[in-house]
């Protein structure tokens, strides 16, 4: 085992901890919103933990660079961990934004949640797949994530288009659903970046950003 390997393992376990916590937090936030559960404090706490973990990942990454001057796949992995950690901390932040919608607008159980449920199902799946793709360096799964991103974009865009076309009946429902869909759409983007990082780690290839 090389000296750097111990550090890379520590980095990996931090990332996996972030992956699990961010997945759980997004799920928690969407469900809390749909079921009108007051989980703001817990989600805020998780989001803060993710932010702190992101800082720890950055510090460890910089330490590994300074100590071992990594190159090739080591370097690509460390760089990607910094990006991926940022992605996971964004998941936490958007989860908090989602629960804030409930705080501001109150109970929305009378609203039509079809689009939100549909988008959140895809987003949860994207998060799961991006994490699996990262852990197993699975390029096929990372490609799936990118395809699913378009589906979430479509749901968001068509919801907005419908709002404009058919005059909304309920302002609260329209605004809160727009916000939630927007946050889900952002989470989906970050899940795609995580999936893209897998391609970079494995093959050193970069996809042009959309």
């Amino acid at each position: 085992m090389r000296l750097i390997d111990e550090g890379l393992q520590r980095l990996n376990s931090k990332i996996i901890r972030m992956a699990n916590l961010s997945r759980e937090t997004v799920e928690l936030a969407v469900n809390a919103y749909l079921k009108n559960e007051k989980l703001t404090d817990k989600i805020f706490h998780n989001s803060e933990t993710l932010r702190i973990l992101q800082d720890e990942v950055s510090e460890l990454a910089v330490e590994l660079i300074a100590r071992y001057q990594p190159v090739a796949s080591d370097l690509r992995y460390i760089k990607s961990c910094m990006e991926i950690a940022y992605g996971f901390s964004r998941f936490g932040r958007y989860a908090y934004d989602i629960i804030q919608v409930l705080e501001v607008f109150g109970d929305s159980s009378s609203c039509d949640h079809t689009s939100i449920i549909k988008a959140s199902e895809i987003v949860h799946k994207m998060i799961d797949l991006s994490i699996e793709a990262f852990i197993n360096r699975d390029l096929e799964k990372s490609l799936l994530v990118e395809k699913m991103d378009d589906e979430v974009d479509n749901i968001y865009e068509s919801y907005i288009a419908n709002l404009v076309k058919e005059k909304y009946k309920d302002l609260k429902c329209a605004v809160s659903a727009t916000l939630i869909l927007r946050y889900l759409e952002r989470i989906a983007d970050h899940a795609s970046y995580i999936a893209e990082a897998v391609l970079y780690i494995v093959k050193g290839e970069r996809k042009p950003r959309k």
Partner: protein
Amino acid sequence: MDIILSVRNLNAWYGEKQVLFDVSIDIPRYHITAIIGPSGCGKTTFLRCLNRLHELGQGNKVKGEVYFYGRNFKGNIYDPNVDPTEIRKHMGMVFQKPNPFPMLSVYDNVAIGLKINGIKDKKKINEIVMNSLKKAYLLDEVQDSLNKSGASLSGGQQQRLCIARAIAYNPEILLMDEPTSALDPIATSKIEQLLVELKKEFTIIIVTHNMQQAARISDYTAFMYLGKLIEFAPTEELFETPKHELTEKYITGKFG
């Protein structure tokens, strides 16, 4: 790309033992090309084939072509009618251990090559010596000790003196064989800065054991293994996304 040296199917032997196998590579002009690889991979031998030094060893043999597109020479340096000493004038060489002539002064260490090559005009010699010392980032430090022995300088200064000596005759290519491996980090850093400056006027080919050094200063890097050229690419590419698995293993230390 402007190529100064085009090496084609270069093979070399020490007696019966073949140490280079069909190496082909194009060296870009006015750039730094680093050659890396484990001990015994043939990188020093390769360097010594480029100025026809290798063949001087008893029983040594070279086969292949090295096309040199110089100012006053164009063609294969291994053509039978080419005089190797002429070729060596176009290629200055700096070795691992600083080797100034200890019996000569700092000044004469740089002037000696000019004098041997028949330059008699003292004013011209003086001009070239001073200019070479300046280009080697050494003049300020030795201004007051030009008459002292070359061996009286520190290791880093001695190596820069050797660089001044190598560039005095205005070669087109500088061949460097681990020029900083005997130096401390500060002296190393000065030489590295110097090389990056010198590539404006010279093409530099450097053999180094220090991969970080190759990464810091070179524009292109060649990885050699067991006498073969495995990969040759722009330095940032070779260190970030090497194409060959052997390169990846070597530079990340996963070898053997």
